[in-house]
């Protein structure tokens, strides 16, 4: 499989009063035209990994890596100006809550058109046509009405689909989705995932899917990285996640209540300090 993104030995550090805090410690992985899941609990560094790739960590946070190369170009060495054209244009990001990502005082149409024209030299009419097309691509019925609407008139699922549409306009090679469905109801969750799945398949994009939900990732992704305390503790194929070996992954799986296997008590994860000391498992192919 061809490699889109190659991350080697990525560290994210935050200096604080109590010394340097390492949010991500030596993470390495590659991404091809596939759906790569990153799972972990809060504080495991999964979101930081996604942000670090786009160099979105704000100072005093520090990003260090041997390389983060996008088709041979090392993003770590790019000047900020070139980085800006990578963000959005070649790598897009979808955040958890669409409410905070859309401008509340602009119509959705204006925002999509603006995003589109920022990346291309299209005229307003062309941009409008293209925006309608994008909204249709994310299965929004009656896109003309949605174009005229304001974000607060949209439901959570609609908002998230609009965000995905906006992110896809410049036709990026990689989409980073940080908990894109956590704020949505289960039935809507399915629809949003189906749309992302279709886009990845049709356009041959690489998708980094960051989530805390093991079952969702097992269901939806091709390959899964399990992160704990800033490190990758295990890499496995998504369909084999339920046979995972690492005690942490096993612990997470066993702590989930299940309808088909009633138990009196849930298993509680016993954390082994060794897990956070052990070196990160490489997920480079």
């Amino acid at each position, binding site marked *: 499989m061809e490699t889109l993104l190659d991350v080697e030995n990525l560290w994210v550090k935050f200096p604080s009063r109590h010394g340097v805090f390492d949010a991500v410690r030596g993470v390495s992985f590659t991404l091809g035209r596939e759906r790569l899941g990153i799972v972990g*609990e*809060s504080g495991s560094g999964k979101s930081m990994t996604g942000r670090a790739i786009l160099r979105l960590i704000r100072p005093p946070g520090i990003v260090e890596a041997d390389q983060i190369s996008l088709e041979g170009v090392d993003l770590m060495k790019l000047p900020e100006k070139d980085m800006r054209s990578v963000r959005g244009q070649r790598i897009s990001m979808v955040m958890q809550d669409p409410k905070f990502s859309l401008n509340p005082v602009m119509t959705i149409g204006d925002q999509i058109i603006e995003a589109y024209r920022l990346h291309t030299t299209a005229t307003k009419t062309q941009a409008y046509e293209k925006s309608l097309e994008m909204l249709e691509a994310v299965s929004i019925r009656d896109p003309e009405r949605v174009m005229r609407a304001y974000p607060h008139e949209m439901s*959570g699922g609609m908002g998230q689909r609009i965000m995905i549409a906006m992110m896809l306009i410049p036709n990026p090679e990689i989409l980073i989705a940080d908990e894109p469905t956590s704020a949505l*109801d*289960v*039935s809507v*969750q*399915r629809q949003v995932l189906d749309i992302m799945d279709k886009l990845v398949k049709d356009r041959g994009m690489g998708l980094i899917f960051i989530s*805390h939900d*093991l079952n969702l990732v097992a269901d939806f992704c091709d390959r899964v990285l399990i992160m704990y305390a800033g490190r990758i503790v295990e890499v496995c194929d998504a369909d084999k996640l339920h046979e995972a070996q690492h005690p942490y992954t096993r*612990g*997470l799986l066993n*702590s*989930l*209540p*299940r*309808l*088909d296997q*009633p*138990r*009196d*008590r*849930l*298993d*509680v*994860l016993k954390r082994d300090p060794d897990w956070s000391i052990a070196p990160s498992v490489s997920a480079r192919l």
Partner: protein
Amino acid sequence: MSMLQINGLNVWFGKNQNRVDAVRQAKFTVAKGESFGLVGESGSGKSTVLRAITGLAPNWSGTMDIDGQSLTRTRPKSFFKTVQMVFQDPYASLHPRHSVDQVLGETLYLHGFSDIDARVVKLLDDVGLGQKFRFRYPHQLSGGQRQRVAIARALAPEPRLLLLDEPTSALDVSVQAEILNLLADLRADRGLTYLMVSHDLSVVGHMCDRLAVMNNGEIVEILDVDALRAMKASHPYSQHLLEASL
């Protein structure tokens, strides 16, 4: 005899043309010692039912009986000794400037206990936190620890009915397991009755004996947990919800 009996409950917000009917004609009964679940998607009115019981949603009609006593417009102080609530977001339900000691101490003081010090110690032990957390502020606690403090606060007046509003949805799965185990233990030890709201069918399936499925403010079906596990819902909406959550 039933702990909670709700009949023809309507709850609404706003008035005239802005009126939103959040709950319509809800009817269910929770027996003493039972654990009853309310499930549904966001906006289905499941949390509003809890807020109506506690008096936090003031506009309601119908009847609500707690342990045979009908509720009126205002809640007497004795009501809060019987019914307590644990909120969804442990990051929002603790006062940011109050230490654990202050939170529990004030609650105990308000309920007229005199041996406050000893009770704070006991409560912290009961929820598995221990002494070293007593003087910490919320920002020094993790999400799971905060939720334990919130549970301790709800247990302080020694209630018999505990309303749980998505008590684990803001927590990691491993912490969720700890909190759900704690809630199960507390129920067994103290003979509590639970009314638990959740969007997660597997959590409700684990914790509850019976559950009501809500959609658009209405209870569409009440089923017991065995039917849930066997995926035997009779209403199409509950069946749809079951399939989506697998």
